[in-house]
């Protein structure tokens, strides 16, 4: 995990406007269909946005929801899952399992406040290079419109290097305390402390 100082105000990057925002999307491909479709798109020099970075799995059935959540946690703005068309899996029927996991995972991320459009499923056979390219373009635009997800990077403050007593004194006793107003929780609180 990237070790970021926790002092920057939350959501500073929220500012990035849809116009300039270039999303980063992780795409999972099946070795037999969609990865070959990506190869085909390349061979045919079909241009599409560079925002999607592909990971090759043997089968969409290998896709562990952990991978998707990991991608969000590591800062991806969206995840694109691809595989063989239903009924055409090279492993007979595994893409149906992928489909079911996708549907349940999408319900779950929605419950965690992540727009369902940040997790998309596209079937692409080995012959559908052009289609895969256009789907990637579509997904990229949809995510661009949603703006950054920018999940916070978790971190442990290494306290051994900190003199807590001094730290406390440094606050002069009223550090970061919100003003005594009816709404006790001060919105600018973090920001204030950070400066």
């Amino acid at each position: 995990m990237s070790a970021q100082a926790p002092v920057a105000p939350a959501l500073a990057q929220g500012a990035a406007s849809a116009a300039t925002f270039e999303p980063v999307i992780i795409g999972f491909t099946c070795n037999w269909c969609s990865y070959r479709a990506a190869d085909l798109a390349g061979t045919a020099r079909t241009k599409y946005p560079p925002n999607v970075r592909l990971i090759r799995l043997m089968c969409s059935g290998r896709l562990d929801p952990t991978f998707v959540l990991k991608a969000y946690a590591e800062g991806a703005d969206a995840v694109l899952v691809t595989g063989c068309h239903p009924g055409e899996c090279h492993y007979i029927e595994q893409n149906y399992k992928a489909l079911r996991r996708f549907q349940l995972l999408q319900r779950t991320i929605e419950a965690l406040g992540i727009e369902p459009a940040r997790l998309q499923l596209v079937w692409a056979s080995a012959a559908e290079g052009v289609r895969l390219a256009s789907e990637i373009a579509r997904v990229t635009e949809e995510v661009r419109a949603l703006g950054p997800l920018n999940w916070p990077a978790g971190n442990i403050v290494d306290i051994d290097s900190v003199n807590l007593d001094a730290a406390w004194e440094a606050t002069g006793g009223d550090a970061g305390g919100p003003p005594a107003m009816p709404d006790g929780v001060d919105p600018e609180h973090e920001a204030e402390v950070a400066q």
Partner: protein
Amino acid sequence: MSPTARSNGAAKAAAKSRAKPKLAIFGAASCGGCDVAIVNIHEHILEVAAAFDIVLWPTIMDGKYADIEAMADGEITVTLVNGSMRTDETVHLARLLRRKSKFMVAFGSCASEGCIPGLANLSSRKEIIDTAFSTVSTDNPDGIRPIWEYQAPEGVLHLPEFEPMLRTLDQVVDVDYTIPGCPPESKQIWAALQAVVAALNGTGPLPPKGSILGAGESTVCDECARKRDVKKIDRFVRIQQVAQFDPEICLLEQGLPCNGPATRDGCGALCPAVGAPCIGCYGAAEGVVDYGARLISAYASIVEATKPEEIDRVLDGIVDPAGQFYRFSLAGSLLRSSRAAWNSDGEK
């Protein structure tokens, strides 16, 4: 407390340092079940008292944080922290104890993965406080909220800050061992303590850093007496929808979302035994990165449907995905929270 008192404390500490290994038991934001579970090792508690010099156990006996502060770094041999990191005060004390302790143990579900209170991370701090202070029975016309630095007529009153997100112990300090469970089963606690004592006496191996103590390496099904077959779920049910569940057969096979398959063993599969589904309090199995992801994948894998709409029909049976999959582990999961918790819209 006077400086002299402080030095006395230090002297006392120095004296003690040649004596028995020191044990501290600290409850952060906890329900106390962990303490009760420790007390429930019953007569063994006396053996613990014999093996350790218990320097801190607020719930049960006297002691002062001041004494802890006075100790040398690493003077406490083992600190068991139960409860989650909910206020800046608990975070601060956890760090203090970390400095003073050789071994820091995340004790119980709260400390290790956030437990039920971790579900607070589904909401923003403002939503939580607003809800608590505007319930139907609350008489609060002026919308008063707790204030961390309150100017009372007689002077300033401080309250610890309610943090934006609840955190697990290892998100705040370096943790050596974990004892899972909500609460950990007393027999397991005793087993873990014995292991620690043995290690300290050199009569047993010191578990490698990061070990999970007082639990198994598999999942609850391993200890569950119910009969299991291959699984095909064509509908998920809720307990109040089914008159009678077969007492012999796997609850999940009967459509009841049981978290047993993904939940670490060690509890003895008590809930399935009493006819209630496992709710997952022992957290994830060995080496698992994200508890919820395992369960999502497992449940979806065994759904008997291939058409998206059929699949949706089955999945509608899980009315609360976030709660079902992250009931105990949200704060410790890959995402740690819902977006609402850190996306400060709620407070803007």
